C-alpha cells in the first residue's frame, strides 16, 4: 500500500551509496573485496557492542529506568569506540595487505592507494551501518500505517532516511580522515574522528533512546553541518583544494579538460 514510501526512503538513504558503489567500486574486484571486508569489520564491532550491552542490560535491574538509560548511553559510547577500534584494526590489516599487493604486482607499485582504500572501506562501514538503521524501518514502511499516533512527526520515515544518508557519508569521510591520520601519524585527526562520531551518535540517541531510531530536524541539521565539515576536510586531505574545485567547475562548464593546475 505504501510502496511509494518504501522506495522513496530507500532511494534517499541508499541512492548516493548505490551510485558510488556502481560507478566507483563495482568495476574493480579489489575494491569490492575491501568494501565487503569493511562492512564485515563494522558488523563484528556491532556484534561485540550488542553483546556487551545485552550482558549489561541482563545483569542490571530491568525495572530501574535510570540504570537502563545509563546503560544505553554507555552502550552508545562503547559502540562508537568499538567501531573506531575496528576501523583502526582494518587500517592495520589493509596496511599489511598493501605490502602483499606491492610484492605481487609486476611494476612494484600498489594497484590501489591508501586514500582509495580509505574511501572504499568507509563506504563499506557506511553501507552496513546504514543497512542496520534502515531495514527495520523500511520493512515497517510497507505496512498501512505511518508514524504519529503517539504524537511523533509525520516525517519520521523521511528524516530517518536522511539521517541514514548522512551516516553513510560521514563514514566515508571519517574513513578518509582516519586513515590519513594513521598514515601520517597525526593522531589528533583520529581523535577528531572519534569525537565527531560520538557527537553524531549522541545527537541521534539523545533525541530518542535507541540507536537507530528517530532523528528529527533537531539532530539532522547539526549532523549535516558536521558532514559538510567532514567532507571539506576529507576533500582537502585527499588532495583537494579550492583551486582544484575551481578547475573542476570550469571544466564542467566548458566540457573540456583544462590542464591540471599546479
Amino acid at each position: 500500500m505504501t510502496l511509494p514510501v518504501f522506495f522513496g526512503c530507500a532511494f534517499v538513504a541508499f541512492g548516493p551509496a548505490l551510485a558510488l558503489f556502481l560507478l566507483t567500486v563495482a568495476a574493480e574486484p579489489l575494491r569490492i573485496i575491501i568494501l565487503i571486508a569493511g562492512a564485515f569489520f563494522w558488523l563484528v564491532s556491532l556484534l561485540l557492542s550488542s553483546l556487551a550491552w545485552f550482558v549489561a542490560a541482563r545483569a542490571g535491574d530491568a525495572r530501574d529506568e535510570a540504570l537502563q538509560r545509563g546503560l544505553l548511553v554507555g552502550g552508545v559510547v562503547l559502540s562508537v569506540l568499538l567501531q573506531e577500534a575496528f576501523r583502526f584494526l582494518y587500517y592495520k590489516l589493509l596496511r599489511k595487505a598493501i605490502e602483499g599487493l606491492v610484492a605481487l604486482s609486476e611494476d612494484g607499485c600498489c594497484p590501489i592507494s591508501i586514500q582509495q582504500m580509505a574511501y572504499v572501506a568507509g563506504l563499506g562501514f557506511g553501507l552496513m551501518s546504514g543497512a542496520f538503521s534502515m531495514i527495520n524501518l523500511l520493512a515497517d514502511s510497507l505496512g498501512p500505517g505511518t508514524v504519529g499516533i503517539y504524537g511523533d512527526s509525520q516525517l519520521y520515515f523521511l528524516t530517518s532516511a536522511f539521517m541514514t544518508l548522512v551516516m553513510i557519508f560521514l563514514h566515508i569521510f571519517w574513513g578518509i580522515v582516519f586513515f590519513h591520520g594513521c598514515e601520517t601519524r597525526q593522531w589528533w585527526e583520529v581523535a577528531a574522528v572519534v569525537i565527531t562520531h560520538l557527537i553524531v551518535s549522541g545527537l541521534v540517541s539523545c533525541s530518542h533512546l535507541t540507536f537507530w531510531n528517530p532523528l528529527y530536524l533537531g539532530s539532522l541539521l547539526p549532523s549535516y553541518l558536521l558532514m559538510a565539515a567532514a567532507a571539506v576536510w576529507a576533500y582537502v586531505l585527499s588532495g583537494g583544494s579550492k583551486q582544484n574545485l575551481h578547475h573542476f567547475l570550469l571544466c564542467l562548464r566548458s566540457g573540456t579538460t583544462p590542464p591540471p593546475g599546479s
Partner: protein
Amino acid sequence: MLCEGIGGEKEAEAAGKMAAVEEEEEMGSSCSWRMRGVAVVLLRGLLLCALVAGSGWCNSVERKIYIPLNRTASCVRLMNATHQIGCQSSMNGDTGVIHVVEKPEDVQWVLTDGPHPPYIVLLDGELFTRDLMDQLKESSRISGVAVAIAKPSPVKGFSPASKCPNDGFGVYSSDYGPQYAHCNNMEWNPLGNGLFYEDFSFPIFLLQDENETEVIKQCYQTYNLPRNGSVPQYPLCAMQLFSHMHAVTSTVTCMRRTSLQSTFSINPEVICDPLSDYNVWSTLKPVNVSTKLNSTEKVVMVATRIDSHSMFWNVAPGAESAVASFVTHLAAAEAIHKAPNVQSLPKNIMFTFFQGESFDYIGSSRMAYDMQKNKFPIRLENIEYFLELSQLAPTNPSVFWMHTDPLSQRNLSDQINTMLVALKNSTAGTGVEVREISSSQALPPSSFQRFLRLKEIPGVVLADHNTSFQNKYYQSIYDTSENILLNYPEWLSPEEALDHVTETAKSLAEVATVVARALYQLAGGSGSTTAIQADPKTVTRMLYGFLVRTNNSWFQSIIKADLKGILENEPPPYYIAVSKPVNATYLVHYVLANLTGTVANLTKENCLSSDGDLYEYAWVQGPQDPNSTSSRLPFCVRSAVHLSSAISPAFELREWGSTQYSTWTESRWKELHARIFLVASKQLEIITLIVGIVILIISFIATYFINAKADVLFATPQDSGAVAY
C-alpha cells in the same frame, strides 16, 4: 479453532516475528548487495534474536506506528450444509479510516459524505441493529465494523439469533404438525434479528474493553472529526482488522476439501472443523456403560443445554439461555442424591447436559441417534419421562411454564398429565408456581424435540416464558449475569461473594427443589418429598463460579490438578467450539461429580486406576490445607458422571449436506487481531517517492562527473594524478 488458540498465540506471534525478520533480510540482500547477503542474514538474525530476548524492544518502529487492540473478539465464519455465515477480512487485513457512529445520523458520513473511504465504523453497541448493518452491508465504502459493547445492555433487547431458533431441526415439519413448523404457531424469539446468520464480506470486531474503545475514540476525535463543516485533513486515524477465513461456501465444500487433502497429503491443511464437544450425563443409580440397559428398566431423563453463542467467537455468556437452567439442573441432581432411599427407587433418573444445542441440537441429536442405534447404554425405549429445563431466569412472581407437545398429547395424555401433576404437586411449600400453557401451542426450541422425532416420549419443557422468550438477550453478548439479576454487594471479596446467597440463587434453588421433587415422584418415589430440598448455597456458589469467576476456592477444590489452568477470573465462554472438551464442559462435569458423587477412601494410585464401567473416579485437588498456605488436601471422588460425544451424526455418517442433523462447521483462520494507527496522505507518500528519486538521480549524475574528473578534483601539486580521489 485448534491450532491458533489462545495458547498458540505467543508462538504464532514469535513465528510471525521470525518471518518478518526474514523478510527484512530479503529486502536487504535484494538491494543489489547480493554478496553480503549471507553475512547480513546470519548476523542480523543473531543480533535481532539477542535483542528480542534482551528487552522486548525488538521492533520499536512498529510500536511507534501501531496500537494493538488486545481485548477484542471477532466475528468468524461458520458454515452449515448450504450457507456460510459470519465475517471475514481480506488476507492482509482490512484497513479503513475510523468513523465513530454514536447517533443514527452519523452513519451518513460513512455511507455518502465522507471523502476518505473506505471507512471502518466504530459502532455504539446500541446502534448495532439489523437496519444499520444492512445499510453498511450494502455500501462499498465500508471495510469493517468495530462494535463497542453497550453498558448498560440495550434496553430494547438484542438478539443476533433468528426469530425461530434451530428452525427445521426440531420435531415439527411437514410430516409432523405442519401447522407448527417454522414457528408458524409462535415466534419464539421475536427480538431475534438474525444478524448471526448473515454473511458479511467485511470483518466485525467486538471491543470488550472500554479503555481501548476510549483510546480509539480519542484518536478519532484528534484526527478524524469533521470540524465545523470542513473535511478532516491527513494524517487520519485508521484501523486494521485481521480475520481472514480459510473456508468458504458451505460445510459440504470445506469438508470435501479437507477430506480430499487428507487422503493424499501427508500434512493436510484442515480448513474447517465440525462444531463438537461432549455431553455430560450421569444417572442416579449407576449404569454399566459397556452394556445396554435392560428394556424393562425405566429412566426419567432430565436435560438442559450447556451452550450458547453470540455473534463473536468465544464470547458466549449465555446466563439465561444456558447457565441458569443447568445450574438449576445441577442443584436438583444434588437434592435428589441427598434424599433418603433414592437408590431403591423403581426407576432410574438420568441427568443430561447437552452441548451444542444452539447449533441445531448437536448434543441431543447425537445422543438420540446413539440411543436409537444402540450405541448408548440407555435406549430410547428405556426413557419413561423426559423433563427438560429450558431457560429459567428468576421471575417475579416466580411463575414457570410447562410446555408440552400438542400432538403427542393425544396418545400420551396420561403420562404427560402425570408429569404435570407431579410438577404441580411439588410446588407446595415453595414460592414457585408452575402453569400449563395452552394446549394448542407448540414446544419451544428444545432438546426434547430431537427425542420426540424418534419416538413419542412423554415430556415436559419447563421454561420461564409462556409464549415467546422472556430473555431479551437470547444468544447475545448481553446475556450475562446482569440479565438474570445476579448482583453482589460491591464490598464483598471474591471469597465472600462465592458464598453470598443472592436472590437469584434463592429463587433458582426453589425451582430446583420443585424439579427434584417432581423427579422423585416420577421415578416412583412414594415417600414424602418435603425432605428433598435444593441448597441455595450450592446454587449461589455455582452461579458465582459459572457466571462471575471460575477461579474460586470451590471450583479449585473440585477439579483435577492438571485442569487448574482453566480457572480464570472471569466466567467461561459457553461456545461449543471445535476443541474438546471446552472448559465449560469440564466445569459442569466436575461440579456434577462433586454434587452427586461420594468421596472414595482411596490412595491416589488406586483412585487413578479404578475407573470402571459403573463409576468414574477423579483425583481432585481438594480444599486448601488449613495448616499450610500452599498445600491442598486432595481426595478421590467416585461418581456416575460420564461424557458422551457431542459431534453431529452428520459427520459420523459423512452426510455433510444433511438436513436431518446439524452440519455446523467453523472455518480455520491464521490470526484474529485489530490495531489502530495513522495513515498518511497520498501526497506525502508521493512527495517521499519523488524526493527519493531526485536524490538518486542527482547522486548518479554527481558521482559520474566527480569520478570522471577525479584527476582534476583531487590533483595535488606534489603528486599529480597519483591519487584518484
